[in-house]
Every structure is written in structure tokens, then in C-alpha cells.
């Protein structure tokens, strides 16, 4: 209800822009939508733009880590951009930075991926 999702395909990357609040309630929707995309599409990498995400708790970490695993399995990379300070602290606590790289902007995140592929 309070989470919106927009996706765009650019070269080998699926860009996912999240807007609103990502909690256990809305995580279900994000998970099933992204799993569908992963199953259907042939993109390699995933870029998650959190610029308009106003709230995220540990249920959000769960969805991100879940997608990270699926993308890794197909040999892709997952990157995240535009992380607000409050969400940044949760990322830090969980050690997520060790596996998912964070970029200040979507374009920088995209550039980092397109160099790889």
C-alpha cells in the first residue's frame, strides 16, 4: 500500500527504484515482483535506487540479501544507490556493505556495473 516500485532496463542491468516504506508488510510485494523479473528477464545485474525510500527496517535487509543471492547465482552484481543516513546505519550494522556496494547516485552505480560486464 505504502510502497511503490518502478523498474527500468538499461543494457545488462535492471534498475529498481523503490519509493515509500519498506517493511515486512511491503517486503512481500517487492520480493515477489523482483523474483518474477529475475525469472523472466535476461539481465545480469541489479541496481536498487533507494532515493525515495523514506523508511526501511530489517525486513528490507532480508529482501535485499535474498535478491543479492539470486543475482550472484547468475553471475551478476547487485549495487545500491542513494541510501539515506537512517538506512545507511542499518546497512552498516548488518555488514551489508561487505557484499553490496553502495554508490551516491544511480548514474555512478550504473557506471560501476557497465564497466564490469
Amino acid at each position, binding site marked *: *500500500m*505504502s510502497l511503490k516500485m518502478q523498474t527500468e532496463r538499461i543494457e545488462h542491468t535492471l534498475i529498481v527504484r523503490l519509493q515509500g*516504506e519498506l*517493511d*515486512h*508488510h511491503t*517486503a*512481500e510485494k517487492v*520480493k515477489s515482483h523482483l523474483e518474477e523479473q529475475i525469472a523472466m528477464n535476461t539481465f545480469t545485474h541489479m541496481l536498487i535506487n533507494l532515493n525515495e525510500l523514506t*523508511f526501511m*527496517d*530489517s*525486513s528490507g*535487509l*532480508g*529482501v535485499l*540479501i*535474498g535478491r543479492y543471492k539470486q543475482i550472484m547465482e547468475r553471475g551478476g552484481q547487485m549495487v545500491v544507490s542513494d541510501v539515506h*543516513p*537512517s538506512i545507511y*546505519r*542499518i546497512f552498516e*550494522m*548488518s555488514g551489508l556493505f561487505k557484499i553490496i556496494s553502495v554508490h551516491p547516485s544511480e548514474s555512478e552505480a550504473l557506471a560501476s556495473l557497465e564497466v564490469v560486464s
Partner: protein
Amino acid sequence: MNNFMKLQFAAVSNNESFARVAVAAFVAQLDPTVEELTDIKTVVSEAVTNAIIHGYEGNPEGVVTVSASIINHTLHLNIEDSGLGIADVEEARQPLYTSKPEMERSGMGFTIMENFMDEITVHSGVGLGTRIQMIKQISNDLTQMN
């Protein structure tokens, strides 16, 4: 300035955002910083989600109780359920520990509660439900005293 509230609701995921907003509206009277308010919302979200997912395992008949009191500039926050309870609280509180990895739980709920609040006490036992008691001092902006 002292005040209290007690909120009970059905253990359905719809109520996670409701609980966050309600607690934030109650705490607003202390003129918290944006960061303090986000910390509190996050912590409410963690504990309420745990009551729904782990305490009641998704049974919507379950009732979650959130109570908050303000004593001077300190927030006392209790979140409880009368669900399954936790057998080993010490293990449950370990970062990354989760009993439900198949649900994509990250195991970070307790770690976040510990980091965002000043004090946390967990009362739980198998069949006895779970009560999380947390305390947080809210920064006292002297220019706002009334």
C-alpha cells in the same frame, strides 16, 4: 511532562506501519530530532513484526500490545505478545541469528533495537509470550521547554 498510552491491535502486517505512526505521534510531544524519531519508528517496526511473525506465526487472532510512557524526557517503550515465546533469548539476540531464514529474515531485529535504544530487556519463555522493554532518552532542547 509525564504521559502514557497503551495500544493493542490484531497481529496482521497491515498494522506494522500503523504502530509506527501511532508511537511517533505520541513521541512528537517531546520534540525529538528526525533521527530520534526514525530510530523509534524502526525499533517499533522490528518488535511488532517479530510479534506477528515469530510470536503468533501469522495467526491474525493474536493481539500485540505496545505501551509507551514519557517520564520527563525519557521514553519507556514496551512491546509484547502472548505468543510462542523464545526458548533461548541469548541466542535470539545474536546478530544475524534467525529461526526463519526461509522467510528471508535477516536476523538483525534485536541488533537494531539494541543499537537504536539506550536500554533493552527481553522477557520471554516458551508458551509465555514475549515482552521487550526499551528505554530511550530524548534530547532535551531547552529552547522548546513549555
